[in-house]
């Protein structure tokens, strides 16, 4: 009976151990796989011609000739789209027309003065031009077709007079003709509604194709290019095609969303207008006008980024994180191992040593932000006098010090007493036997502590928040005092990109990409350390 119970208990134990391992692996996969999958999108995606344009302009990359050829190929299909848009906007966007006509009138005045027209004639012609201008402006304002036609006819009377042939005023007549043609297809009473929808269409076309070739280059890099990625382009295409209307549901209480295509012949906001063909044209020619191609953007890991991480990569962040982590390790490993050695080998078992142990254990549990504040209050104020890489690395070193001491202490303690006795028996002193026998034997254990702290140091945001991390900082100038410069870091970047800008909402792939880079970096550092550890223990075993 007892044997059976013992066996059952044994099986139960084995089962629960196995289950917890499976659970652990599942949790790890559940955590890592989606993050890596989403993060990979920052590096592997279908880049459009806009992406290649951006790469060429911002990073001097790619084949210029091939790019020019591509741009020319895409220009044609884009031009067709713009032509439809312009034709339609003429009737709707009267502000632009008004500005155009006012400008033409001013130009005509200049032209007359330039030609030294006699004063009498000048006054006459100028006032006539003014009448034409006012008629046109009235026509643009009006929403009644017959009224508009009256104004335009009044303008045409002057055209027949021939006194304006060959002058700028002819252009005004052309505008009048164009306007007359457009209003035939437009329901003018709905002009306000159209104008609002048209601004959405224009914005989405901008998001797809970037500024038009004749427009001046925008200031910010983020406005200079259209959709650089095919997935982003698809999103904007659906915003362009589909209009989300919120209508009251049948119970009259809440609102429900109805999606309507903008060119739907019955319900679409542009039904029956000359803009209708634009939507299917954009949809059908999108791959011609953007030329998506599979892109492996490995430079993501070394590229600088435009502010707000809209374009570019995480190069400076990776470099900053590496520098901070390595420097922190340099500061922490020496003192950490030495104090562990002291605690095990030299210190006795008295009250003071006990207090020191309690202090170290407490330090290991102190929240990281406390270290951050200490770093600002002590290192930044008294040691470096300037927030920078050095003060941040020292703060991080302080953070990981207790972990390293604890792990090293355990590792040194675990070295069999017989090793030390053998060393001493051969005549080695206490110091010598520690350096040549105990420390190498404890090496793998100490490395485990270092591996744990590496990941912690690379991933902590709070300690470096005030001590030397910046959202935007130049790459450290290694010719000068680089240790006093602030640096970007992956951990702080992840924080900044989520809380800072509205841009982060527009480029979620960059957010995931940065997190993925941090995870990969920690993973790589760990793999290197584990590799070193396994070689070390192999050597110890005498293999």
């Amino acid at each position: 009976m007892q044997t059976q119970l013992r066996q059952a208990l044994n099986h139960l134990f084995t089962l629960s151990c196995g289950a917890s391992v499976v659970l652990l692996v599942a949790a790890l996969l559940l955590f890592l796989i989606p993050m890596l999958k989403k993060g990979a999108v920052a590096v592997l995606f279908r880049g459009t011609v806009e992406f290649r344009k951006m790469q060429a302009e911002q990073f001097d990359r790619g084949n210029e000739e091939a790019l020019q050829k591509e741009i020319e190929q895409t220009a044609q299909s884009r031009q067709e789209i713009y032509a439809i848009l312009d034709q339609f906007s003429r009737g709707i966007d009267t502000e632009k027309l008004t500005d155009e006509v006012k400008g033409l009138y001013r130009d005509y005045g200049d032209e007359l003065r330039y030609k030294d027209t006699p004063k009498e004639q000048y006054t006459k012609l100028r006032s006539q031009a003014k009448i034409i201008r006012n008629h046109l402006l009235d026509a643009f304002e009006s929403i009644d077709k017959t009224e508009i036609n009256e104004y335009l006819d009044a303008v045409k009377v002057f055209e027949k007079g021939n006194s304006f042939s060959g002058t700028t005023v002819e252009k005004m007549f052309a505008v009048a003709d164009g306007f007359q043609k457009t209003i035939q297809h437009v329901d003018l009473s709905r002009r306000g509604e159209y104008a609002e929808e048209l601004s959405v269409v224009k914005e989405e076309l901008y998001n797809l194709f970037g500024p038009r070739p004749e427009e001046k280059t925008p200031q910010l890099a983020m406005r200079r290019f259209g959709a650089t990625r095919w997935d982003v382009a698809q999103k904007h295409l659906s915003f362009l095609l589909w209009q989300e209307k919120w209508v009251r549901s049948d119970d009259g209480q809440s609102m429900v969303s109805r999606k309507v295509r903008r060119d739907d012949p019955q319900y679409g906001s542009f039904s029956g207008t000359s803009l209708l063909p634009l939507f299917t044209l954009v949809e059908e020619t999108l791959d011609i006008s953007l030329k998506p191609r599979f892109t492996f953007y490995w430079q993501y890991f070394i590229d600088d980024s435009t502010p707000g991480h809209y374009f570019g990569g995480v190069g400076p962040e990776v470099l900053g994180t590496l520098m901070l982590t390595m420097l922190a390790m340099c500061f922490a490993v020496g003192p950490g191992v030495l104090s562990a050695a002291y605690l095990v080998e030299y210190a006795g078992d008295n009250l003071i040593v006990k207090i020191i142990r309690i202090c170290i254990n407490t330090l290991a549990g102190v929240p990281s932000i406390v270290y951050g504040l200490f770093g600002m209050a002590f290192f930044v104020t008294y040691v470096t006098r300037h927030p920078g890489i050095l003060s941040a690395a020292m703060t991080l070193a302080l953070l990981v010090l207790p972990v390293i001491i604890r792990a090293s202490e355990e590792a040194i303690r675990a070295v069999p007493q017989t090793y030390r006795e053998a060393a001493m028996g051969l005549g080695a002193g206490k110091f010598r036997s520690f350096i040549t026998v105990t420390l190498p034997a404890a090496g793998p254990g100490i490395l485990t502590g270092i591996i744990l702290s590496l990941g912690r140091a690379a991933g902590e945001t709070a300690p470096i928040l005030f001590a030397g991390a910046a959202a935007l900082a130049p790459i450290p100038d290694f010719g000068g005092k680089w240790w006093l410069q602030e640096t970007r870091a992956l951990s702080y970047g992840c924080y900044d990109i989520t809380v800072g800008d509205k841009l982060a909402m527009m480029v979620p792939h960059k957010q995931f990409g940065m997190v993925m880079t941090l995870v990969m970096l920690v993973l790589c550092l760990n793999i290197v350390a584990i590799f070193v550890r396994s070689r070390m223990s192999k050597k110890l075993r005498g293999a």
Partner: protein
Amino acid sequence: MMKITVRILMMFVITLLAGNAMAAEKLQIDGSTTVGPIGDAFAEAFKDKVSITVSKTGSGDGAAALVEGRCDIAMMSRFMKDKEYKAAVNKDIYPVAHAIAMDGVCPIVHPSNPVKGLTSDQIRAIYKGEITNWKDLGGADRPIVMISRDTSSGTYETFHKLVMKKEKMTDSVEYVNSNPQAHARVKSTVGAIGYVGLGFLDRNVKALTIDGIKPSQSTISKGTFPVSRPLFLFTNGYPKLGSVVHAFCTFHLTEEGQEIIEDKGFVPVTDY
């Protein structure tokens, strides 16, 4: 193995250095997370002339950094407090404010909410916990979920002063740490109300009118929208004419500066 690793690292460093044009002058900018994006974008425009560091640690820290000489320009989403000003003057630092842009704090709800606008009294009543259901405001029978920014943010301070009239919010208000979070929370919660800066309005949330006034570029720049605030850069004294700091603090007056401010979702001060 070692050699390859070293070589890869070298390549990495060299690539990074090659992309970094060495600018002689340095500019240290510190402060508000709200003004941060403008700081970033201005920095992009100045990147060939000067090497700029932007830290976003909050308005309070920006003021402290200016007083302690840790930065050249402090970004602040509110004016300096009396205490901060006195501390500065005691240290022989004379802060000068440059209002570079305007921002509006806009109340937002889920797009399915039929309510189009509220009065500021109604909003105050919601956050004080006096109105708890949308049906009292002409909406569906659904409890109101109140989202607020954390109490240390400038956005909260503006809302607290101008809408709440410094009265305490009820305990059931949910606090979030950033504008994107507030936006995400309202986007995904049908009965939610929250408030964000003008730049965060988009098709996923519905902006409410306050006292019948729609949040927009023109109402905010004129100050008719009740929850508008200026955003500041602070320098120690008026910057020396012709210096980089001077150019940076007056950049918002140029056409390029205004274009950037608009692209970042703020309102230029010169937009009347």
